[in-house]
């Protein structure tokens, strides 16, 4: 009998019969394996259960570890743009800049680019106010934190910052008054559609639809804010690509956002890693404890085999095959349960499914088999030193 004929999984009786017909020498070995599992159902089941739980926990942890970082990155994109494209020296960006940016970043989904054009207009009493032309639909997606009472959707409607609104169009009854702005002698009548509150510079500005803004002022966008998704390296790569297609513009990462994100993400990843390691180790310990008990418990089988003249190699092979079979079955069942658990955690915590990663399966399988083998070999090594007669006498 050689190790190469050791079956890796439990066989059905039919297969066993088949095997027996073709290779009579392996039949005894396979039969012993199957009978050992069938006769001691309870102990075998508890060992398998421990294996499954450990494999499931390990799978869930590895899946989460990989996926959570991507999930958190998406959360971090709520902080808004991490790359800003600014025309050099107060110029405007070329008209096709936005299209170029989108063609560069378009390959990746969830990348947002929002153009902004700025002009300083005068109110009827001569005060200066910054007016911004933008694409409202995009700005709304990019800047989740903007608190907007109502987004403009009709012509000549403007989104007015809180502080600008307090000065420009005081509240008259339930509605705010329309107001007039002039830019280089051209006047425009605007109706405030909603209030914008951010706590930052936006509060003193007035936002207009980009085409209306351009008709009025003739000023083209000078800034494009980009929320580039991906790891820090991917964002860097995007910046380099953008610099190639837009040589006339300054492309800067928003350090405040990028570094804050990197900081929090690194700490979270490290914590997750430490926790996942602890959990996986604990589950391995659980398997070890159960399996050692299981094998140790069968020292009488071991002694009988030895007394009947089985070679050391055969005995080792037998217990190793048993452990390996347990490891494989436990890993497969545990893997699917673990994927389910990871998906559940993803749904509960991130409201998005965790994509099952089959690439972790080889690691789970190898780990399970290795732990199972260790827990089988350890007691065997202990028992080998004991005379079979002593074991059989029950001492």
């Amino acid at each position: 009998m050689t190790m190469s004929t050791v079956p890796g999984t439990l066989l059905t009786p039919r297969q066993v019969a088949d095997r027996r017909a073709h290779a009579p020498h392996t039949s005894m070995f396979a039969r012993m394996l199957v009978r050992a599992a069938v006769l001691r159902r309870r102990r075998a089941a508890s060992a398998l259960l421990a294996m499954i739980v450990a494999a499931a926990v390990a799978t869930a942890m590895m899946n989460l570890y990989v996926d959570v970082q991507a999930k958190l990155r998406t959360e971090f994109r709520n902080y808004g743009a991490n790359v800003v494209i600014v025309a050099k020296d107060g110029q405007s960006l070329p008209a096709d800049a936005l299209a170029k940016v989108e063609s560069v970043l378009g390959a990746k989904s969830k990348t947002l680019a929002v153009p902004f054009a700025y002009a300083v207009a005068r109110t009827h009493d001569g005060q200066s106010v910054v007016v911004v032309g933008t694409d409202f639909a995009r700005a709304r997606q990019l800047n989740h934190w903007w608190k907007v009472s109502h987004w403009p959707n009709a012509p000549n409607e403007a989104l007015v910052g809180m502080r600008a609104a307090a000065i420009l169009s005081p509240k008259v009854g339930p509605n705010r008054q329309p107001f007039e702005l002039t830019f280089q002698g051209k006047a425009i009548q605007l109706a405030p559609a909603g209030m914008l509150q951010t706590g930052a510079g936006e509060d003193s500005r007035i936002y207009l639809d980009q085409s209306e803004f351009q008709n009025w002022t003739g000023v083209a966008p000078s800034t494009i804010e980009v929320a580039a998704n991906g790891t820090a390296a991917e964002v860097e790569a995007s910046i380099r690509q953008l610099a190639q297609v837009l040589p006339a513009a300054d492309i800067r990462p928003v350090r405040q956002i990028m570094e804050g994100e990197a900081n929090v993400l690194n700490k979270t990843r490290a914590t997750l890693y430490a926790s996942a390691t602890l959990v996986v180790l604990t589950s391995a310990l659980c398997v070890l404890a159960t399996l050692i008990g299981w094998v140790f418990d069968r020292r009488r089988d071991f002694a009988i085999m030895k007394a009947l003249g089985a070679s050391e190699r055969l005995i080792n092979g037998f217990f190793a095959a048993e452990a390996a079979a347990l490891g494989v079955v436990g890993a497969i069942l545990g893997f699917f349960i673990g994927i389910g658990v990871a998906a559940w955690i993803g749904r509960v915590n991130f409201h998005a499914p965790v994509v099952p990663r089959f690439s972790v399966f080889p690691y789970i399988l190898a780990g399970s088999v290795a732990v199972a083998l260790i827990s089988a070999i350890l007691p065997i090594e202990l028992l080998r030193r004991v005379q079979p007669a002593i074991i059989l006498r029950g001492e």
Partner: protein
Amino acid sequence: MFPRIVYESFRRQARRKLLAGIAITLGVAVATAMIAVATDIGDKINRELRSYGANLVVTPQEDTLDVEVGGVNLKPPSDGAFLNEADLPKIRGTFWHHNIVGFSPMLPVTVKVGEGNNKDAKDVTLLGTYFNKALRFGKEDFTTGVKITNPWWKVEGKCGDGAEPVLSGAEGPRPGRVEDSPAACGWPNDNSQDILVGERLAAKLAKKPGDTLEVAGRQLTISGILSTGGAEDDQIVAPLALAQQILGKPGAIRRVYVSALTKPPDALSVRDPKTMTPEVYDRWYCSPYVESIAYQLQEVIPHSHAEQIRQVAQNEGTVLSRIKGLMLLITLAALFASALAVSAAMATAIYERRVEVGLMKALGAGNLAVSAIFFAEALLLALIGGIAGFSAGALLARQIGRSIFNSQISIEPVLFPIIMTIAVFVTFAGSAAAIRRAVKFDPVFALRGEG
């Protein structure tokens, strides 16, 4: 007799007891460490989130509009209202002053930069602020400034005499910690007349650290080049007192950025304090919501309006709750795994002793007496393993805290009885099934060794 049996069992079967004890110790250690990390992670991540910068801004109540495009302020410098610098230390006197990590006053001034009567002298914004200013409130000394509130600001400057320029900031003070090495290179002293020049402006002017620059008729030394990735790259950043001198308004500041640890918003936080009943108001006031901290800042700084910076304040709640939720779920998994490991070890340890049970029963011991012995042993194991595991877990948590967050993870003393209860409960639960089976086992078979 009973104590002797238990005692002898420990003495004679030291190896088996050791195995079970190790399993319990490890299980409890993992559980302790995970619970400690999970309960502290909110606070730790909250501090890390401060690296996004200030989440509150205080402005004068009656102010004119900011007219700022691309970092260039077009508003006349003396226009509008100011806050008083003398009110700033009072921020330390608010109810939630422990949650206020730092604050930075800002005073932008438009200045002419250039040599002598040079015609192409340009308008540049000079931003007066605190770098790492020592302040005193009551009997408490503290430092605050942009080094704490804006950790992404990096300064390249000279270290000591003739030393190579070193990028400071990365190794500088970490966000959320009011500690500092005084020798951080390039940062000007708050009481000096030295300035920082933004990197793009420095490139335009061809200046490097150590050079002098004529700003508004004064010769100022550039102590470092500032890189922020924002509007400050085109500006000059100076000590607040210098900006006030240039503007001719001592004690004036435009706005204050405040970086505070806050609680994620919930239904209570967004309510208007004016419409609350006194009871609800107290609860709202005594919770570190960004809204209630803003309210308290307004109370201490006269004629001010405090507003949350929504970009920072609104997002940190989501990130925080996601990470906390994740850690909670992982902690549950860890508890589950360690409970299982302890149960498995106990079950194995008891199953091995069926012969003993058989002997005891043959000698006339009742089921109750046998179970009592096993439970007493389990209790002893759980207590010893629990104490050892708790200490090991506390060490582990400390190690995790130190290596990941560079700060202590404190173990609440109240955790000890909880952990011990869990340890005893899990050990009992893990043993119960095995003990039941061991007791039910026919002594005849057990003694004949037919397991």
